[in-house]
């Protein structure tokens, strides 16, 4: 594949090229179309950040679970039924009043699929990958997240097969909330670390949409 092929060789449009590749692989018997659909369906509809929200909300209400989660995240998360590809080696990192965690993959797009699903477009983009390590505070501000200057920001660059999930701080005013109620406060972005968990007042004013 020379890099100028799309100027000289038809078909030029990426949608057509992907379609041609899919037809070719199916015709050659290298890909089973039913298997292909199954893969897409799994990541589009079954695996997503609600898994992670379940993990976080449980950790907020269950101290024993939280302890296990911090010591052996892979095992603790598997006990809730979430395991598999891009979640083989999980590490949960806990936010505290003095420490805020932020996850990035500067070299590609490593992300804990089993608990968060596929990463959003911005997570895979050059601006986020380049800047999260060098100017995390400015990056957080682009997400509307402002932290006091004395809070340490700890960035995790996912260069290995370890996958990092942020455990956000439980919002105040939720002391009598159930695990199910708390799940609604846990956004995908709060588990990447670019935002904080929602506060109770935000629930009425914002549509639910973390699927």
């Amino acid at each position, binding site marked *: 594949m020379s890099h100028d092929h799309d100027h000289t060789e038809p078909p030029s449009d990426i949608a057509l090229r992907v379609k041609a590749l899919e*037809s070719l692989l199916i015709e050659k018997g290298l890909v089973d179309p039913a298997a292909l659909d*199954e893969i897409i369906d799994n990541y589009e509809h079954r695996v997503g950040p609600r898994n992670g929200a379940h993990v976080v909300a449980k950790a907020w209400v269950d101290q024993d679970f939280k302890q296990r989660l911090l010591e052996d995240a892979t095992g603790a998360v598997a006990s809730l039924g979430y*395991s598999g590809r891009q979640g083989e*080696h999980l590490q949960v990192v806990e936010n505290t009043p003095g420490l805020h965690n932020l996850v990035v993959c500067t070299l590609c797009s490593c992300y804990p699929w089993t608990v968060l699903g596929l990463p959003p477009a911005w997570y*895979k983009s050059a601006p986020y990958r*380049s800047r999260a390590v060098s100017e*995390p505070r400015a990056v957080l501000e682009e997400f509307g997240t402002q932290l006091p200057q004395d809070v340490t*920001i700890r960035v995790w*660059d996912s260069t290995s097969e370890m996958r990092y999930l942020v455990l956000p701080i439980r919002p105040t005013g939720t002391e009598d909330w159930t695990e199910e109620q708390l799940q609604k406060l846990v956004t995908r972005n709060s588990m990447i670390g670019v935002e904080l968990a929602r506060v109770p007042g935000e629930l009425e004013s914002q549509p639910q949409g973390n699927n």
Partner: protein
Amino acid sequence: MQGGHDLGGKQGLGPIDPEPESEEPVFHSEWERRIFGITLAAGMLGQWNIDQSRFARERQHPADYLRNSYYENWYEGVCKLLLENGLISETELLNGTVSEPVVSELRVPSREDVEKILNSGGPTQMELESPPKFQPGDQVRVNRNYTNGHTRAPAYVQGCIGEIAMHHGGHVFPDANVKGQLQGEHLYAVRFSSKNLWGYGNDNSEVTIDLWEPYLAKA
């Protein structure tokens, strides 16, 4: 290699401009959906590993890598892997039709196989006979490694001093895995102050990054 993919600390790439979480679809077009599925399905043929797959996307002209959208780079990567492994030919890719029969006897996963494969994943942890060379708290320097090959030591930490924060145990070593050699090495989370990496330290931040033992020397 320090190609277009090695982005940590690069400048001038603009604002992030994130799509609101509640509005972002998993895929933004039908072809993205298909190339994602094709890449995973082709990977399940077992002809290449994750590091070879990453290296296929990295081996592009940096201008192309950066100009392409994320899934365009996936398309480039999977085509390269299919061509280099002799599963398709240039002519077939150009025409989109079969001109040469499949010679190998590959096990092509079915719908039923897929769930099993996705659920079992591909653990990279390995038992090692040698004890870890470093302990949490040790100061280490990242070796300079100006290689043409695949490495997971980003340019921005090479030559810098950090502190061992965690030992993750033995894991498959990407620099060897990309050559098809299964080799385990101790893996550590290494912590760097932003001052050590970027020369300024007043924003109270640090970067923790996973690095394998061969990347490191005692500081």
